[in-house]
């Protein structure tokens, strides 16, 4: 039996409430508000209280997918990454780096966003990077 409480930050909306994830035997079982958090002071909204539900949803993607014969099929990471890299390199070679664009995300972490724009700028060589701040 293993039971852990992990403090974290809610990922629904820009308020940034402090949550506690309850983890039993390696499974996420519940979400609680953090009582002493400066933003939400032990309260949450309906989305926050149910934050764990989307994480453990049956609908989650569990494997990389590749389109073959018009259908998305499960594949390995090696194949997925190689196909993506080859595809991007080919587009860059034929049409230049500005023919590639990357969308960062208002839902992923700062670290990930930093890397996404670094990828666009340093790896691809374009400033075609945006996200849905406007939407």
């Amino acid at each position, binding site marked *: 039996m293993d039971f852990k409480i992990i403090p974290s930050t809610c990922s629904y909306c820009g308020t940034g409430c402090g949550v506690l994830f309850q983890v039993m035997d390696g499974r996420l079982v519940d979400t609680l508000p*953090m009582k002493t958090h400066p933003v939400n002071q032990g309260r949450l*909204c309906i989305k926050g209280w149910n934050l764990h539900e989307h994480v453990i949803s049956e609908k989650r993607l569990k494997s990389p997918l590749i389109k073959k014969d018009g259908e998305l099929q499960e594949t390995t990471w090696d194949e997925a990454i190689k196909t993506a890299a080859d595809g991007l390199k080919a587009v860059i070679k034929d049409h230049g780096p500005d023919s590639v664009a990357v969308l960062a995300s208002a839902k992923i972490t700062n670290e990930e966003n930093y890397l996404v724009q670094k990828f666009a700028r340093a790896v691809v060589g374009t400033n075609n990077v945006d996200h849905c701040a406007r939407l």
Partner: protein
Amino acid sequence: MQEQIKQWLEQGDIDIFLGYKMIQGHPLPYCFTKENPDDLKDLIVGNARYSLEKMATKIAAEHKELKIGLLTRDCNQRALNVLYIWNQLNPENIKTIGVNCCPSNLKEHGDCSYLEPELIPPIKKMIGIDNNMQVKAAEQFNQKERFNRWMYEFQKCIKCYGCRDICPVCFCKECSLEHTDLIATGGIPPEVPIFHLVRAVHMGGRCIDCGLCEDACPVDIPLRLLYRKVNEIVTDIFDYTTGTRADQSPFNMLGEEVTLKPKPI
């Protein structure tokens, strides 16, 4: 206290102990185990209350034989009594260490610094309900004013269900609050006053006046007062005060022969 728990863990009296630990300046619930007895030196009582018994209930549902130790304030102990009565926890598998607790109607004294009476803002006093108010004082309002004040409070509701989700004695698999024939979904505030009255009715014979619901309410609805009133009625009719004993509640005696001494309402 640490020594006692360590001993229990070592002797196998308990398998885990639910208490609190200070993590980066925040008192958070923590599960102590015999594998890491040294953790116990970090055990604190903490001035933030969480429903450790609700965590115990979740754990026990999946690990039926697990022996669980808990740090209990008075409210946690009352909740445990209710959970025993309703077969959510087996008292034989629970061991508690009691600590001083907060003030409540059921127990007058208390030194829990976290629950000092709230300073009630003036407008709430004028048109809403003082969160420190006792049932008797609330009944001084005339019928119309009482109604208006409660309507004000209920209309603030953002339907987070936090009152239910945090409640140590809410454990039903299906919740009437989400029964679409009873309460319309899809809007806020939830149907006023049905939503709150449905929950209040379900708190009859259940609520142990721990106040966690009110602590969790984003808009400061005086839920504790509402459920106190409901349970005052329960006490009047059934001569039963929720959470004070671990023997049968008049609400789970269906099918058994019982003798009640109803008092006139």
